[in-house]
């Protein structure tokens, strides 16, 4: 019987072993991405997929729910917590759709954020009528931000709604955000900061006097 010579093990085992490792490793890498929800327990996963299906059936933006679930996983929250947060967001999306009517999906995510921050469904009514060429995403974003920074919800609602009805563009909302943020950082009361900035112009917020922090100007550049 022929014996397997040792020198053959030495010369060929390494490339073959490397091939096998790459084979196994490749499967591992491929297996990381496809199903992030596999890290959820069965019940949580079922509930989240059910809510995503419900959102799709109702014409709601399920990508918000999916992103929230992934965020919860990334933050290492337990399954019950993730389900509760996704459920809350689904409810907010339903209310936002009811308030805004047939808005596009991105707008509904923004409006749900306003409601989540403390806005009231009735305050969204002013945005129900769509204006050609205008998008209310920036308005909703600044609105939610103002409430997050401590501006009273009603004050924020009135200011944003007035600007929107006066035809303010995205740059105006961004300018308002920067000015109020700057004033708050300097110690001004959030509500007062907003009132001062709104009072500065008849319906329009003047261009930002605050120099954008480094990186801000280049945060978006069109191709």
């Amino acid at each position, binding site marked *: 019987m022929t014996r397997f010579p040792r020198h053959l093990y030495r010369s*060929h085992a390494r490339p073959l072993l490397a091939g096998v490792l790459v084979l196994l490793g490749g499967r591992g890498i491929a297996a990381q991405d496809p199903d992030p929800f596999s890290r959820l327990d069965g019940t949580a996963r079922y509930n989240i997929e059910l809510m995503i299906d419900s959102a799709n059936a109702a014409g709601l933006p399920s990508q918000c729910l999916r*992103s929230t679930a992934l965020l919860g996983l990334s933050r290492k929250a337990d399954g019950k917590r993730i389900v509760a947060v996704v459920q809350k967001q689904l409810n907010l999306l339903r209310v936002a759709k009811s308030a805004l009517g047939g808005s596009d999906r991105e707008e509904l995510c923004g409006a749900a954020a306003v409601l989540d*921050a403390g806005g009231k469904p009735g305050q969204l009514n002013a945005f129900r009528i769509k204006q050609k060429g205008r998008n209310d995403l920036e308005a909703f974003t600044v609105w939610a931000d103002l409430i997050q920074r401590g501006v009273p919800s009603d004050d924020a609602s009135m200011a944003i709604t007035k600007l929107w009805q006066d035809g303010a563009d995205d740059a105006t909302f961004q300018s308002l955000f920067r000015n109020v943020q700057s004033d708050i950082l300097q110690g001004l009361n959030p509500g007062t900061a907003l009132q001062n900035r709104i009072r500065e112009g008849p319906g329009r917020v003047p261009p930002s006097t605050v120099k954008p922090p480094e990186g801000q100007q280049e945060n978006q550049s069109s191709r």
Partner: protein
Amino acid sequence: MTDSELHPYVELIAREARRPVFTDRMGRDRVMAAIHAEPTPRRDVRLWERMLEPRAFTLSPAGSALIAAGLVGIGVIAGMTSTNRDVRLPDGQPTVADVRVHLPVSDTVVNFVFIAPQASKVSVVGDFNGWDATKTPLVRAANSGRWTVTLPLTAGRHLYSYVVDGNWSMDPNAPLAPDDGFGHSSSVKIVSRGSAL
């Protein structure tokens, strides 16, 4: 009645055959040496024994490399076929096996900048990368605390955060989103439409 009784020649032949044969020692050794020189007749080996019998084979380094490359190829193909099995896509679309591939359409490139002179590792997480801190690391500019990365993003509202040495941090220059329910607020980036490729 036997044959020998019938044929006297038969008895003669038998008698000759019974006679002892005397050979010299040298001749016998020659015969035995010749027999030993003959190859051993193959014994009847069963199939499974042949399958288990170790074999020696030689391969050139190029041959080994080819085999390794083949294994890698098999791994890649196996990975691709097993990827996305039973996966629910955004918007509840059916599994990938039933769906044509749609390449993501980016409307704008966004430059994320974070200033962290003391940090050793900064990445950005958001709804555009599944909130995976390993996917989008920022690169530190030489001799500065300025970290940057440029990403293609679709139009719309994007939530994101920076992860600085393992700690989540909001973008100080961007609007805040409400508390996400997990004890953290994300930053918001609105990517405007109209710059579609």
